[in-house]
């Protein structure tokens, strides 16, 4: 096995261009498991942990630009106020050891339907920045997930960063698992309320071949809020509307039966999570008046 250690981003991109089959490694919390279990034995590994740019974050034209190599622990500590939904999701990832090493870039690289960073990125309409020696391009999170553990990255590309607007309103993340910590999602849901755009974003995880944005549910709840002037009146919406909202979120899912849970349960649980997280978020919005 060849182990490449680029010192700079351009060097890393050049290596990836020269060897498109080379596999990058960040925290290694996905890749090393695959190697240890002998599911995968890459001939070449590119270690991205020495590239400073990947571990940095800052404002970029009104948006946060967060390097692919920023760990969950740092997202919780440094970005918890600006990205509360992603920070809540990060808190549910694995154990302290995993949060200290694991990165959002790695989560995107693996593109598992159960990746916990994905629902908040969908709910906040984040953008993934991909780079190669030929240049960079931006892909909406919604278009990034191409299939089970498949993403829009080309063979010569690396993930540079993701871009997301700082929260302007309440955000929530909820994950169902059969253990009270350190658990892979049976299903998960992220919700982001943006009072300025009068927008509610919803991403769901572990309930289909890819993480899914629940677009119809988003439109529905936005219409309800609009129609009843709830943004202005700062009151709760009708239970019947909330119920329908939950059903639409469940309908967005394409779940299967597997060792972690049944398809029926996943749909049921997503509807519950949708109602609960909306209520929590809307409570926060009302209080913020």
């Amino acid at each position, binding site marked *: 096995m060849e182990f490449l250690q680029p010192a700079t981003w351009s060097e890393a991109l050049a290596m990836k261009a020269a060897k498109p089959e080379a596999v990058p490694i960040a925290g290694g919390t996905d890749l090393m498991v695959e190697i240890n279990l002998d599911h995968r034995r890459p001939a070449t590994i590119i270690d991205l942990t020495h590239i400073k740019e990947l571990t940095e974050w800052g404002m970029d034209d009104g948006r946060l630009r967060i390097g692919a190599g920023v760990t969950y622990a740092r997202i919780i500590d440094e970005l918890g106020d600006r990205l509360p939904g992603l920070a809540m999701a990060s808190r549910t990832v694995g154990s302290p050891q995993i949060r200290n090493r694991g990165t959002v870039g790695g989560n995107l690289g693996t593109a598992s339907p159960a990746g916990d960073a994905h629902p908040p990125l969908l709910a906040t309409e984040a953008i993934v920045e991909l780079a190669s020696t030929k240049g960079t391009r931006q892909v909406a999170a919604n278009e990034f997930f191409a299939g089970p553990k498949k993403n829009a990255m080309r063979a010569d590309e690396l993930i540079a960063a993701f871009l997301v607007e700082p929260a302007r309103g309440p955000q929530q993340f909820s994950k169902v698992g059969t253990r009270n*910590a350190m658990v892979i999602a049976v299903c998960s849901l992220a919700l982001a309320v943006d009072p300025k755009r009068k927008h509610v974003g919803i991403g769901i995880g572990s309930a289909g071949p890819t993480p899914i944005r629940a677009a119809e549910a988003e439109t529905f709840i936005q219409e309800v809020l609009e129609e009843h002037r709830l943004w202005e009146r700062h009151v709760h919406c009708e239970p019947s509307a909330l119920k329908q909202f939950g059903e639409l979120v469940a309908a967005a899912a394409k779940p299967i039966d597997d*060792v972690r849970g049944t398809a029926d349960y996943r749909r049921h649980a997503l509807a519950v999570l949708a109602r609960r997280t909306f209520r929590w978020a809307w409570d926060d919005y009302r209080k913020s008046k």
Partner: protein
Amino acid sequence: MKPRLAEETTSGGRVGDRVRRPDAVQKVRGDFPYSSDLQVDGMLWGATVRSPHPYARIESIDTKAAKAAPGVKAVLTFEDVAGENAYGLEIADQPVLASDVVRYWGEAVALVAAEHPEQARRAADKVKVEYAVLKPVTDPEQALLPKAPKLHPGGNVTRHIKIRHGDQNATAEVVVTGDYEIGMQDQAPLGPESGLAIPDGEGGVDLYIATQWLHIDQKQLAHVLGLEPHEVRLTMAGIGGAFGAREDLSMQAHACMLALKTGRPVKISYSRPESFVGHVHRHPGKLHYEHGATKDGKLVYVKARIVLDGGAYASSSTAVIANASCFAVGPYQCPNATIDGIVAYTNNPPCGAMRGFGSVQNCYAHEAQMDKLAAALTMDPVALRRHNSLETGSALITGQVIDGPVPVAELLRLVHERPLPAPAAKNADLTAMPGGVSNTTHGESVKRGIGYAAGFKNIGYSEGFNDFSTARVRLSVVDGKPRVEVHTAGAEVGQGLVTIQAQIAGTELGVRDVMVLTADTEVGSAGSSSASRQTYITGGAVKAACEAVRERVVALAQSELKSGEGLRLEDENIVGADGNVLVALATLLGEEVIDELRVFRPRKTSPLDPDTGQANAHMQFAFAAHRAVVDVDTELGLVKVVELATAQDVGKAINPQAVEGQLEGGAAQGLGLAVMEEIQVQDGVIKNPSFTDYLLPTILDMPPVRMDILELGDPNSPYGLKGVGEPPTISSGPAILAAIRAATGRPVTRVPVRPHDLVL
């Protein structure tokens, strides 16, 4: 040539002291040498070729490509098994390497030794095995049908226990029935199966191994290797948990075969997925129960049919089904009983020993039945249990009359009267909620339930088994001070035998420097670290050997001091009848070494009558009760066990700290089966052979355990002690189930409880 092993230690302490494990700090720091760390120069690594089918005929095995692979030193098949290619704890029905047929997914077919573990695994992939795939039998009820294919020459009934007690036609005023299902739990020891075999150059082999019973391994190894027992010497290596998973052979014979073939030391260490097929599991089962009682709540009869899935090979199934049947009614008086306990062969993963050993499965059923009966009688469930509790002098459904303390009603009273934890706080921290840090509820739909359960089981081996342990105790003077060395083959599996032996020697001989030597087969058998028996039986042997040493010291003092009666050994001195120190022990001994070997045997037991199941089949019984307080998110089906309270009679707590550890750890394992731990088997294939999807409780799942530890003293055992390790695993889970039923109002008849069982 010897690998680094755990140090021989002096932990000190007397019987009843709280003694810290001598290896505790090393383990926390990661310095403790586990069997997976074993290493010597020039060692090869073994890998195992396993069946990808649950049931198939082997047509051919081609090892050519594997033999030619880089680094490979040997590739072995059934043809290389020098002795008889069959072993098993009770029935020798399992091949060391499959020859004609494979009976479960993951069964060992061939072995490879290579310079590097990676080379060994790669070469294992190159062994070409052609299979004619057969349709597996994966349901024990199907296996029992006459038309089912016979998986073993004697048919598919591994054992059928019939208990016919009292009036077989008894009727009752109030009758409740129920069907219960238990999933397959794994012992999930954190240390994988691993060991190192070193050939002695004269045809024999030394095996360093983490096991529960060195001598049964030795006996089985000699048989399959075609050697004399003295040519196969075993030494205990650092163990990372056992819980029954290390009672059977796993890689022992394989490593020895490869070492004898290559003339080089060979190490085998399983990966986590391999470990899931490398040891037996807790039997899954289906239990049908009918309870009859009088209107005032006295049990009249219990009828039960208990069917356990034994999987492909017998392992200890025959003893597990005996327990499941003998204790089918729970710790209650029941004048009439009709119990059919059947364990069947299937093509599922083999099942065998696991903490609680048959008494766990039935406890879920009899305790659910007691609650159902209480509801039918509109009686308080604890009152109903206390009303029927076994007492000293009660007859079990096997006819055995139990002597000694039987505090079932008292244990129930203690857990019942313990103050309840505070109600769930509004806006409590997420870690206190069902769903935990995953943020699924802020209190919505959370209902609290409280449940009770009691359970019991036998301690030690039953049914006429020749149970004994051997201890050698040596007293000498080292650096001017007396030193005691205790040598047994008793396996320290984490339960704390290592401090127990030192505490007993310290108590009996009054010597401070007590060294517990590494367990090996150079001394006689200690029996297994199973059935909660080791403190009793090996503790008894150490006590007997110490008493023999003490007698010789006193005799020596009498002859040296020309003194008559009344001499005692006290605090490293010889003391006269008047209490005056006459001579220091070290001075008395000088160069003299006193070395005594003793064998200890508990009370005899007898086999169950094959037609009625009646007999004095068990040596000692241990009882425990639990109360569980559980919060359930009734919309999502997620569970938070808020508190477990337990009461258990341990007879005498030799090391109270270790006893508390057993009560907590055992309850955690019980909680695991109740709410999350399950090996999911589909068409004979394990779907979740890793800790990613075989979930074990974390610190956020396991609540504090409030304990009442009773020391009522068994008149028949050393220091009055009772076995401690298994009762906590028996009634903890059933209490949690009762609490979940109370919270949800649903019947919940299957464990582990899955979220969809509670909401869909």
